[in-house]
């Protein structure tokens, strides 16, 4: 039976990382996920709208939640962007905490015929794979295991902190899901310092040097730990780690050249999809260490 979700792709997955939105659409049917795209929903604010005006960010995300709650038969809402997930979780925490506040926000939504009911289930694709589909099920669907591929998980910030807000506890060790998934797909997890650190992207326009030094540091640490590539559940991290990598090399003072995969791309490769279908040709750092382009087979597979 397929899992129907109200799907919010976010802005960046349709802007500077179109390969993320594209690869999600390719992977969903293979995992029996039915995506109902929320085409009327708006930007989550990425923390910047909340920094400007908290009520504004809360209202826009309550609007998104209300739209998701209108999708008939959808079991939950799903994100493919960690920043969306984190920013929405922050707003949901306030909205769900206080009835009076929620009512005030709903009053603003009323003219559009929308109303947010407390307690929406909203999960990132990563959480959904582990908690709703199950890693055993996913492992059964693998046709091209990532044998021999050394993958560094890059979680970023928004889906691992603050732990209580993003729902990390003993039963839901969400800060380890990427590691577990890499193993379920047949890959090898690379242990390096940057897995749960910040890519630096939020200050790219404010302090480019500090921003890209962070990216360069984590890429360098992963290279030193013999990683073939990184995988990230966040397109904003991808911007700093992949798109900006040539500049990060300059600020970091060393050669890098480490491919960075989006989460659905890694899953898609293991499920046998063609690298080009997954948009891997669109990356700034060519994922040659990950893919043998002549045969479209993941490196290391005999």
């Amino acid at each position, binding site marked *: 039976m397929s899992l129907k979700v109200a799907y919010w792709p976010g*802005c*960046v997955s*349709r*802007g*500077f*990382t*179109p*390969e993320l939105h594209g690869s999600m659409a390719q992977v969903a049917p293979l995992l029996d996920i039915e995506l109902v795209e929320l*085409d*009327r*929903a*708006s*930007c989550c*604010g*990425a*923390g*910047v*709208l909340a*920094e*400007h*005006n*908290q*009520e*504004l960010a*809360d*209202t*826009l995300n309550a609007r998104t939640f209300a739209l998701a709650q209108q999708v008939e038969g959808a079991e939950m809402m799903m994100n493919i962007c960690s920043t969306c997930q984190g920013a929405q979780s922050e707003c949901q*925490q*306030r909205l769900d*905490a*206080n009835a009076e*506040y929620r009512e*005030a926000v709903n009053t*603003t939504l009323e003219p*559009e015929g929308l109303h947010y009911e407390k307690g929406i289930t909203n999960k990132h694709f990563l959480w959904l794979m582990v908690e709703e589909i199950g890693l055993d099920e996913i492992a059964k669907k693998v046709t091209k295991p990532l044998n021999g591929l050394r993958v560094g998980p890059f979680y970023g*910030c*928004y889906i691992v*902190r*603050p*732990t*209580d*807000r993003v729902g990390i506890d003993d039963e839901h060790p969400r800060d380890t899901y990427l590691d577990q998934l890499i193993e379920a797909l047949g890959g090898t997890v690379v242990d390096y310092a940057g897995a749960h*650190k*910040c890519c*630096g992207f*939020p*200050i790219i*326009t*404010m*302090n480019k*040097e*500090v921003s890209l*030094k*962070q990216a360069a540091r984590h890429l360098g640490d992963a290279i030193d730990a013999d990683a073939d590539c990184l995988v990230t559940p966040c397109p904003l991290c991808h911007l700093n780690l992949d*798109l900006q990598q*040539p500049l990060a090399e300059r600020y970091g003072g060393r050669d890098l050249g480490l491919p960075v995969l989006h989460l659905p791309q890694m899953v898609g490769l293991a499920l046998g999809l063609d690298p080009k279908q997954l948009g891997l*040709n*669109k*990356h*700034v750092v060519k994922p040659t260490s990950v893919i043998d382009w002549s045969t479209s087979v993941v490196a290391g597979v005999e």
Partner: protein
Amino acid sequence: MPAYTLRIRRYSPESGEAAYWEEFGIELGPHRSVLDGILQAKDREDGSIGIRCSCRAAICGSCGVRINGRPGLACHMHLEEAEATSRDGKITVEPMGNMPVLKDLITDMEAVHWKKIRRVTPWLLPDGPPPEREYIVPKEAMVDVTQSMACIQCGACVSDCLSMEVDPEFIGPAALAKAYRFVGDPRDAQRFERLDDLSQDPHGIYDCTHCFNCIEACPKGVAPMSQIMRLRRIAGADFDISDRNNGHRHEQAFVTLVRQGGLLNEAELLPRSYGGDSWLGKFHPKAGAELLSSLPVIMKAVMRRKVTPGGALIAHKITGHKNLRRIFDTIEGRDERYELNLYIVQPDDAAPEKAGHAGGDAQGTAASTPPERSPNA
């Protein structure tokens, strides 16, 4: 058979030897603290173990360390809990990060932490002669700063600040939370000067990457990052400070683009952050200079068809984006911003009685578990 094993990082700079790990068996019950464990090892096995401590009750802030890689107070974590979060059953204790180590677990708080605290002028700067008796302010006006007042100066947030890791000059979470304590204080007469200073400094409020590490680290629920966001909000919205770091311009451009089309359009957002929040922003010399320096990246992105010129230049808009303008106008038209501070207002289901609004018993609520606080604290 000892109940627990501590793996302590030992280091004496003057010895000339590299740092090393040393293990100690501890015979204590599960509900004794990691600090009790360290003190037992010091007492029974090696009196030279360096640890700073005093109150043993999470009040003085002396015993900040990293336990299993995470910052916190050694006196504030049970041995049992520490063992459960360890990688291999041995509790790892090391000095805090981002600060020089003086000996073993003792870091030089003066070199980093206190210097930065002094940087933000951590005292009240009222106007005119002091009143004959005390300053009288409405109770509600002070509630908001209670969260930053809860800081015990332990340095846990400084230890794990990811911006400071690459930029040692970053003023950092503890000092900026302290800055908010005075910016949020109605008695202070130099709020603009404080904010202008912290906005214009390239290592000030706009150097924070929003990584939540300080919120996670703080054993007292201060949520320094949330205080930094408050500083930005007041600097931008109330004082209209246009900083040279593009911080406020970036925020304005972001808000405008979402208002207009519902999505952020990176190809517009980036030049506007440098050149100013209008369609003309991209023709500003500063935007041009930025474009030029990013040319290698842009060329690659276009070559790989990651970004197409058409896709970048034509603004994408969501269906029914006009509804958003109404929402923006309604909320931005309010006389006062409506903010729900969960440090002060308890969630409905956690409050013993129906929670009131800001201005309630701040003393009482601040002592309970705030939502932004780390569960391992």
